[in-house]
Structure formats: C-alpha cells, structure tokens
C-alpha cells in the first residue's frame, strides 16, 4: 500500500495510539444526522453550509472507517440530497463564509500564545479555526462541483490557507486532533480527486510542522521518566554530592548531610555517613550521629585522645553551625530546627576561644 500522507507514525501521539479517528467521525455523523433530520423545502443557509461541508468531508473519509462508525445511511442520504438540491444548497451556503472574519479571529490564536492563556482554551480555538476553514474550503469545493465558482471567495480562502501555512506552528496545540483527522482521510485522495485533496492540504501542512517540531525538540518527545526513577536518581545525586562535600570540607561538614540522611529510606544501605567525626587540636574526638526521621535534636559526644569520655569539657560552651550549647556529661545537645534554620555548614567550635574542630571523615 502507498504511504498515507495523512498518517505520520513517527509522531509520538500517533505511535502511542492516542488520536482516535472515531471521535471525529462520530461528531461529523451526529451533525449530519441532525441536518438531514431537519431537511425542509426551505433550508437555512447555515444548515446548507453544514450539509455541503459534511458531504465533502465524508468524500475524503476512508470507507472502512465510515462503515465502522455506522455512517453508511447518512452518507447515502446526504449524497441524494446534494444530487437533488445541490444548486440551491450551494447558493445559500455561499452566503455564509466570511474569510476576513476568520483571519481576524485567527490572529487571536497568535495572541493566545503571547498571553500564556489556558492551553485547553488555546487548543479548542485552534481546532475550531481549523474546522471553520476546512468547512469553507469544502463548501467552495462543493459549490464548484455544482458549477458555481466564486472567484472572490476562492481568493480569500487562499489567503486564509497561506496564513495557516505561514503560521502552522500555532496549530500544533491541536496536534492530536489534526492527527486524528488525518487518520480519517483516505490515502489515495489525491489520485481520486485532486481538488478535494487540496482541501486536506491544511492537515498535511500541520502534520509536517508537527514532525519538524518533534525533530527539533527531540528531547521533549522522549517518553517521560517514571516518578520513581526520577526520585531514585535524585537520591543518588544527593548521596554523591554529600560524599563530595565531605572530601572538600576543611573546617565543616556540608549542611546538606542533614537533609541527605533524613531523606534516606528505611532499610536502604546507607552510603551517606550516619556518624560525623571531628578531631580536636589536642587529639580529642567528637562524634555526632545524624538524626533519623522524627528526631528533633543533635547530640555531639566528646572523647579524649585516650578515648575516654571527655568530662573535662563539661560546662564549656560548644557551637554547631553557629548554634550555641553547653557541654554536660561530655555531651552537647543542639535543637535540630535551630541548626537547620542557621543555614550554615556543620562547623564544630568548642571552648572560650571557639576552637574549630576539624572534620575527620576517615
């Protein structure tokens, strides 16, 4: 089978089977059923317009899809009506299209992007503009088939088509709709009826623009990562950063260690240290167990160079990240919230001179 110019399997949404041509078909057939049901000896201009547009549209549709949607009855009925009243319908229908008003309205689509309006409102507007232009093109085509050529209208519609071609990217917000309409079109349209195929050019133009956009923004088109995968990657990044922070720290541990540790999940192997160690100039040491979820304090334990409990430091002042405390029973306790709010690295200072204890990650 020839390549169908209206179906682009490379487009992400098409590849994922999202556009549903049946949705478009059902809406067209519903409208046609309504117009046919209201047929009267004195048809209105808008009904005539819709009827001719729908007749033309169904000429473009894949026969298998039409059968699947149960639209044979309407197709036959509209063909009979057009054969019987075509000229009258065309005369009335040609009083409806206003290409100048369409162009004016189309410019609001341009503004809709500039104004960062609601994306759904934007895609609805784009879809309607597209359908409105398509209706007009189809009516002009149908009228021509009835021997009623309106040169002025042809020119005006060509100007609309040119505008659409120049601004095809504006219609990408209705890209899924365009892909669905494309799927309704028969692949051999140009061979069967060149003039009718011209009315479908607008969809080809937008499909081309969609392919170009996806190629340009290839990264955007990649499948989204699962939330869990993103969270795991972020977690690993935090761990790496924490380890790096330990290596580069000279006088303090990075405060991000607090967050990394608390963000760790229960049961996970801890690649982030659970205990921070400092060394005093006299060989003494201090240890801090990083808090687990739910804990509200940080306690630094002091030891002498001989690994005894450093009660000799009792009653001295100690600072962690600039937050003060007092050593009691060789321990200094700091409120976790105060340390976090200090937004400083975990520098440990002890005694009246505020001697800085060196991080000792080994």
């Amino acid at each position, binding site marked *: 089978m020839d390549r169908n110019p209206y179906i682009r399997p490379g487009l*992400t*949404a098409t590849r*994922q089977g*999202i*556009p*549903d041509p*049946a*949705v478009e078909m*059902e*809406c067209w057939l*519903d409208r046609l059923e*309504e117009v046919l049901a*209201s047929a*009267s000896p*004195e*048809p*209105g*201009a*808008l*009904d005539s*317009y819709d009827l001719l547009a729908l007749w033309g549209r169904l000429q473009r549709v894949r026969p298998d899809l039409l059968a699947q*949607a*149960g639209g044979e009855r309407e197709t036959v009925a509209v063909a009979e009506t057009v054969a019987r009243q075509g000229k009258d319908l065309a005369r009335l229908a*040609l*009083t*409806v*299209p*206003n290409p*100048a*008003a*369409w162009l*004016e*309205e189309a410019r609001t689509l341009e503004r809709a992007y500039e104004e960062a309006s609601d*994306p*759904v*409102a934007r*895609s*609805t*507007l784009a*879809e*309607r*503009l597209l359908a*409105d*232009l398509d*209706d*007009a093109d189809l009516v002009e085509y149908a009228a021509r088939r009835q021997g009623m050529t309106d040169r002025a*209208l042809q020119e005006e519609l060509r100007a609309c088509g040119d505008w659409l071609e120049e601004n095809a990217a504006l219609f*990408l*917000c*209705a*890209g*899924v*709709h365009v892909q*669905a309409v494309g799927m309704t079109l028969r692949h051999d349209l140009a061979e069967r009826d060149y003039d009718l195929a011209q009315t479908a050019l607008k969809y080809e133009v937008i499909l081309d623009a*969609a392919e170009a*956009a*996806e190629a340009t923004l290839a990264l*955007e*088109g990649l499948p*989204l990562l699962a939330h869990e995968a993103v969270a795991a990657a972020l977690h690993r990044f935090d761990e790496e950063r924490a380890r790096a922070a330990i290596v580069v720290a000279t006088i303090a541990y990075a405060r991000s260690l607090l967050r990394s540790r608390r963000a760790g999940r229960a049961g996970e192997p801890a690649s982030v240290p659970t205990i921070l160690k400092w060394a005093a100039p006299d060989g003494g040491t201090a240890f801090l167990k990083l808090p687990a979820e739910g804990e509200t304090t940080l306690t630094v334990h002091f030891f002498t160079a001989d690994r005894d409990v450093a009660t000799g430091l009792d009653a001295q002042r100690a600072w962690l990240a600039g937050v003060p405390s007092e050593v009691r029973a060789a321990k200094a306790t700091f409120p976790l919230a105060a340390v976090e709010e200090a937004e400083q690295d975990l520098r440990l200072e002890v005694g009246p001179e505020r001697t800085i204890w060196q991080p000792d990650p080994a």
Partner: protein
Amino acid sequence: MFADWPSAREHLRDHLLTAPESEAWAVVAPGYLLLLDPADGDARWRYWEQVETSGGAAAQPLYDLYREAASADALDARLVRWVRVQGRVTVAVGTSGILMLVEDGIVRTAFLPGQGDPEATRQARASEDGRGLVRERGMRSGRPGTGGAGNREEAIRQRREAGWTPEQRLYYRVFRPCVQFVKRCHHRHRDLYGRLLRQDYALLKECLPARSRLKLDDWLDLRRRCGRG
C-alpha cells in the same frame, strides 16, 4: 453542593444565566421558563440584578431547579456507570447531559457542555453590557453583502424544533452535544505529544458508548432504566 454561596452564585451567572447555555437549562429543567425567558438577554440581566440586590435570595428558585437537575443526573451517572474517579477528582455525566466535576466531595462545576464557546462567553462577560452572545462568528458570520446568516436561521431552527417532543429536544439539543464535548476532550486536553493537560472530562470518554449504541432509542431506554421515562 458548592463550597460556598459565592461559588454557587458565580455558577448560576456563568451557566444558567448565560446564553446559549441558559436555553439548554430550560430544556433540562422546564421550570426555568416559569422564572424567566432564557432567550431574553434583558430578562436574564434583570434577574441577575435582582440576585445581586437581594444578596442572593432571589436566586433561590433557580438554584433549587439547578440542584434538583444536577442531583438527578448524578443518580443516573451512578446507575449507568458514567463515572470516573481519579485521585481526588470524580467526573460524571447523567442522561440529561449535565457534566459534573467533584473534588474532595465539593462540586467544582456542573454544567451543560457543548452549548457554546467558553471563550465567547468570557468575551461577552467582558463586553460593556455582557448581555448575551452572538450565535455565529468568525468564518460562519456571513458573507458581507449577502445578508448572511441571521434571524432567519433562528426562525428556521425554531420552526424545526417546534415539531420535536421534549425528549427529542433534550436528546438533540443537550445530551448529544454533551457527549460530543466529552469525546472531543480526548483530543483537546492533550499537548502535541499526547500528554494530558487535564485529566478531568476526558476520563469519561471510555465510559460512554459508541455513537451507534447511543441513538435516540438507546438513550430513551437508558432514561427509562433511570426511572426518567
């Protein structure tokens, strides 16, 4: 139903008192016609002014009609299983064509979709008098110098619909546009890559039967099953 009175009042203004949805509400709840003419922009405007000056009290009869209709459709939705729940959001549609969105047990909206262009509604509200909407605009507004589509179209439509039964009017004027709206959301609520921009109304597409199983007779059967025959 709503979180508060201002939300309910706003809803009455934007849906029941704004054309063309106002006319569809009169089809769903015929009692509307006893309160005001939904097609008369001035009448709707006067009603709204009364609502404002009475601190909302004047809106009670209209609100009661609205609540009754929405509740009946919510029951239908449950019976025919035209309901979808995702997270905190529940979307449902009843056999009258009232589309409902409930979040955390509070009605966010209950309206008749497919009755008009929301953008046109917004523009009309922003206009000087805000008293109604043009029926057609843009490409379909009529070819200059030909008389175009105007009041004659409306007269033809009214003559045609005069022969309809109330059920036919509800089916063709309200229910079917609603179904089309819901199905079209499947495409409209997505970006170029097919990712959903909103997960609300589009969720219902899979619940609703295909067109071939939702013809007038099928719909009448459903209405009977819901005790609305």
